[in-house]
C-alpha cells in the first residue's frame, strides 16, 4: 500500500462531508432531546408508559450497540482498504489484486447465531409485557370509562361507580378526567371509522375500531394535564382530533365528579335565556345533548359532543381550540368548517345569535 502525501490529501478532502455532517447531526440530536415535548414517549409519567419505556431502553441500547459495531466495521474497512490511486475511469488497471476470499463458514454461522441469541434475549423480555398490558383489571379496581371515537372528536362516558364517587353517570368530551395514581380501564368504540386513542405519557395507543370493542389501560402518577391525540388516519381532520387527559388529586377529583353530576340550571332571563331558546331554534339541540334540557337528538344526526358541562373544559372541538378564549368559540359558531371536515353543520348565525348562544353555553359549567 503506497500512500503518498498527495493522495492522502485527496483522501482527506473527500471525506470532508462526514465530520461536518456528524457535527450537525449531533447538534440536532442535542437540540431535539433538550426541548420540552408534551407528547414525548421517552418521558413516561404513568406506570404503563413506564413499563413500556423500561422495555424500550435496553432494546434501544442493543440497537445502538449493533449500530456502532456495524458502522464501525464499515468505516474501518473504508479507511483501511480504500484504494487511493485514481481509478475513476479505469478499474482494471488498479494494479495488484487483493486476496480472493470466498467466505468463511464458521464466521458466517457465528454471525447468524449471535444476532439470533441477542434477539432471543429481547424476545424474553417482550412477551410478558404483551400480556401484562392486556390484562383486565378486577371489577372496582380501576375507573371505567367508555370512550367513543368520532370524526373528529372524543366522547367519554363514566358509568356509575360508587368506588370512584360516581353515582350518576357522567358524559363529557375531548378532555378525559381521571384520578391520579389510579388505574383507568377504557372501553373503546367508534361510531364511524378507525381512530386510535393515544396519550403518550400515560400509555401507548390502541385502535378504536367500528364494530369492535377494545380495552386499554391508563394511569398517571401525578396530577397534571397530558397531551394526546388520535393516531390513526381518520379523514380530513385527523390532525385536529386531539385530546387531553386531566389527572386530578383526590380532592379535586371529588370536586370534579360532584360538579359533573349536577344538572345545569336552566337560564330564565337575560341573554342566556335567549340563547337557551336559540339552542333549539337554530337546531343545536338536534345534535347536542344538554342534560335536563335537551335530552333527545335527531336520529340521523352525527354523533356530537355532550354540552351539559361544556364550560367545565378548557378545550373544544378535538381539543384544538381554547375554550377560555371567547373569540375561539364565537369563531366556531360562525363557521364550524374552520376545522376542515367538521361534521357540525349550522346555518348562518347572526352576531346577536352568537352572543346569545355564547351566553347560554357559558352557563353550562
Amino acid at each position, binding site marked *: 500500500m503506497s500512500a503518498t502525501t498527495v493522495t492522502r490529501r485527496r483522501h482527506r478532502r473527500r471525506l470532508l462531508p462526514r465530520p461536518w455532517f456528524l457535527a450537525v447531526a449531533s447538534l440536532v440530536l442535542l437540540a431535539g432531546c433538550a426541548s420540552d415535548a408534551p407528547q*414525548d414517549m421517552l418521558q413516561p409519567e404513568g406506570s404503563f408508559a413506564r413499563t413500556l419505556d423500561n422495555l424500550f431502553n435496553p432494546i434501544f441500547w442493543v440497537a445502538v450497540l449493533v449500530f456502532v459495531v456495524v458502522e464501525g466495521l*464499515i468505516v474501518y474497512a473504508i479507511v483501511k482498504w480504500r484504494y487511493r490511486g485514481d481509478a475513476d475511469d479505469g478499474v482494471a488497471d488498479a494494479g495488484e489484486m487483493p*486476496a480472493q476470499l470466498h467466505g*468463511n463458514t464458521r464466521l458466517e454461522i457465528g454471525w447468524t447465531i449471535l444476532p439470533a441469541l441477542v434477539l432471543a434475549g429481547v424476545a424474553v423480555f417482550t412477551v410478558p409485557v404483551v400480556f401484562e398490558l392486556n390484562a383486565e383489571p378486577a371489577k372496582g379496581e380501576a375507573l371505567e370509562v367508555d370512550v367513543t371515537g368520532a370524526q373528529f372528536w372524543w366522547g367519554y362516558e363514566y358509568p356509575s361507580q360508587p368506588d370512584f364517587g360516581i353515582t350518576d353517570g357522567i358524559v363529557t368530551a375531548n378532555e378525559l378526567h381521571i384520578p391520579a395514581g389510579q388505574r383507568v380501564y377504557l372501553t373503546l368504540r367508534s361510531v364511524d371509522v378507525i381512530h386510535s386513542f393515544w396519550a403518550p405519557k400515560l400509555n401507548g*395507543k390502541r385502535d378504536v375500531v367500528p364494530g369492535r370493542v377494545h380495552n386499554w389501560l391508563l394511569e398517571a402518577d401525578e396530577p397534571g394535564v397530558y397531551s394526546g391525540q388520535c393516531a390513526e388516519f381518520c379523514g380530513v381532520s385527523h390532525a385536529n382530533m386531539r385530546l387531553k387527559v386531566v389527572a386530578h388529586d383526590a380532592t379535586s377529583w371529588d370536586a370534579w365528579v360532584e360538579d359533573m353530576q349536577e344538572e345545569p340550571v336552566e337560564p330564565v332571563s337575560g341573554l342566556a335565556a335567549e340563547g337557551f331558546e336559540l339552542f333549539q331554534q337554530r337546531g343545536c339541540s338536534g345534535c347536542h345533548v344538554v342534560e335536563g334540557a335537551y335530552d333527545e337528538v335527531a336520529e340521523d344526526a352525527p354523533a356530537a359532543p355532550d354540552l351539559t358541562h361544556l364550560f367545565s373544559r378548557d378545550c373544544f372541538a378535538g381539543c384544538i381550540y381554547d375554550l377560555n378564549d371567547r373569540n375561539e368559540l364565537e369563531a366556531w359558531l360562525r363557521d364550524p368548517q374552520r376545522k376542515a371536515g367538521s361534521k357540525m353543520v349550522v346555518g348562518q348565525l347572526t352576531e346577536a345569535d352568537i352572543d346569545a348562544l355564547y351566553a347560554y353555553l357559558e352557563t353550562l359549567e
Partner: protein
Amino acid sequence: MALTEERPPLELAAGDEPVRNPLGAFTRPSSSYGWRSWLTTVDHKKIGILYGATAMVFFALGGLEALLIRAQLAQPNGQVLDPQVYNQMFTMHGTTMVFLVIMPMLAAFSNYLIPLMIGARDVAFPRLNALSYWVFLFGGLFLYSSFFLGGAPDGGWFNYAPLSGVAYSPGHGIDFWTLGLQITGIASLLGAVNLITTCLNMRAPGMTLLRMPVFVWMALVAQFLLLFAIPVITVALFLLMFDRLFGANFFNVEAGADPLLWQHLFWIFGHPEVYILVLPAFGIVSDVIPTFARKPLFGYPFMVFSGIAIGFMGWGVWAHHMFASGIGPVSVAAFSLSTMFIAVPTGVKIFNWIGTLWKGKLIFTTAMLFAVALVSQFTIGGLSGVMHSVAPHDTQQTDTYFIVAHFHYVLFGGSMFGIFAGIYYWWPKIFGHKLSERIGKAHFWMMFVGFNLTFGPMHIVGLQGMPRRTATYPEGMGWDLMNLLETIGSFLIAISFLMWVYNVAVSRKNPHAGADPWDGRTLEWATSSPPPAHNFDVEPTVEHLDDWWHRKYGEDEQGRPVRRERFTYLSRVDEASRLAGGDEPDVDVSAIHLPSPSYWPIVLAIGLPLIAYGLIFTYWLAALGGVIIIAGAFGLGLEPSVDPDAGHGDHGDHGPDEGHDQELAEVGAASGGDDDEEAS
C-alpha cells in the same frame, strides 16, 4: 435518455410508400428503431429501459408530492396545503413511490439484466413482457388521471376500511386507487410468471442455479414474493371495489363486517411487498460491491440462502403492522417474535457485505458509494424495524414519525440507494457511456446528506410523539426545529436528484465506455455495450460462478488472480475493448432469430384502463375496453411470435442509444448489429 432516433426507416424494395393500415394495428410492425419501435418492441432490454425511464418520471412526481408535504410541515400551522390536498399528497406519494417507482425500477433491472446475466437471448415470453410494461404504464397513468377527474385518492397508501368506503370517501379518488392498483398488479403478476420462468428455464448451459449472480437470485426471490403476494392484494382491492361500486358489504360495519379483514389482506400482501422492494436492491449491491472491492462476494451461498430465508420468513410477520389494532395478545406475541427473527438473515447479508469489503481494494466509484451507503443506512432502518417489532412499545411508536423514519431508511436508504448504485454501475452497459463520475459523486454526497437530514430528525420527532399523516401540528410540541431541518433536507435531496438529471443529460457526449468498463464479474460484461439485440453472438457455456471473471483471470501459485493475456468476448466488441486483451468470437449471427415486434401488447393493455374508467363513469366504456382486450388477446395469441414476412430483417436490433455518436456507430457495425441493411 434518448427515446427517439433519427434513422431512416427500413428501406423498401420498390422504394414507394407501402399501403399501410392507418391504425397500423394489422400490419406487422417491422422496424426495430425509431420511436415506433419503442411502442412495439419485445426486446427485454428496451422494455427494461422503458420501465426505468417511466419509473424515474414517477419518482420526480412522487418527489414533488413529498416536497409539498415537507413545505406544509416546515412550520407549525402550515398554510401551504389545505388538509384535503395534503391527504391526497401523502397517499399519492406513498402509492407512487411503492407501486410506480421502486417496483417498476426493479422490474427495469430484472428485465434488462436477468437474461444477460444468465446468458439468455431474451426472457421466456417476450411479448408478454411488453404487455406487462404497457399494462403497468397505463395503470400508472390511470391512477394519476384522478387528479384531473375529481381528485386523487386520499385514504393513505394502505387505505384502511371503512374510511375507504363510499360512506366516508364518496368521491372517485379511492376508485382510481383500487382500479389502478389492480391494473398495475396484473403487470406485476405477468412479469413474475415471465421472469421466474426465465430464471428457471432460460439459463445458458452450465449456468446452474448456484452459479447465478446474486442479483438474479434476489430478483427471483422477489418475483416469487410478487407471484404469491399480488393475488392477496387483488382480493383486497376486489372486495373494496365491489363495496364501492356495487354495494357489497365486505367492509360495511353496519352489516356486521370486520374492518380488520382489510388490514389482514392488505398486510399479508404488504409485508412481503416491502421485501419485494428491497431484495433486488440487495442483489444489486451484492454485484456492485465485489466488483469494486475486487474480491468475490463473501459467502455466496449464505447470501443466496439468507435471501431465500428473508423471502420465506416475510410471509409470517404481517401483523406487526397491527400491533395496536386489537388483534389480541396471543397473536401480538406470536407476530412480535416472528418479526424479530427476520433480522437474522438480514444481518447475515450486512455482515457478508462487510466481509466482502474486508481486505479488499475498495474503489469508490459513485456506484460503490451508493452501494456502501446502502449497507450503512439500511442497517439504521433495520434497527428501528427491530425496535418496532417489540410489540408493547410499538403501541407507542406506531403511526408516528418514528415509523416514517424507519421506512424511509429502508426504502430510500435501502431500495433507492441500491437503485442508484445500479444505475451508475450498469449505465455504460445500457447506453455505451458512463455517467460522469464527478457529477455522480456530488450527486451522491448531496443525496446522502439530504437523506440523513430529512429522515434522521424524524426519529426524534417521532419519539417525541409527532403522529404521521397529520396535515398540521400546533406550536409548543417541541417539533418545530426538527421539522424545519427535515424540510431543508428534502430540498437538498431534490437538488441532488436534479444533479442526476443533469448528469444524464450531459453525459451523453461521454466517450464510449467499452464492453467491460469496471472489470466486471458477470456475463453481461462479456458482450458489447450496449449489447446486440440477441445479447450474445455465441451462447455462453458457463463453468464458474462469476464466469466472466474466470474467463479473464487465472490464478498464480498463491491463488492470486492474474489477468490472462487473451480471453474471448461473447460478442463482437469495440476497438478499445479488444485492445484490452479481449478476442472476439467468430460466428455468423444471421442465424439467430428473435421474436418480431408487435402492436398487440400495447393494444391489449389499453383496454384495461378503459374498463376501469368505464366502471367509474359509464359502462359503455367498459364494454369497449372488454372488446379491445378480447381482440387483443386473440391477436396476440394467433399472431406468430416470429413474423413470417419479416425475412431476416428484424433481428439486428440496436441498443437504445446507438447512432448518437460516431464511435458508437462503429461499434454497432462491429457487433453485427447492421444486418438490417444487409437483409433488405
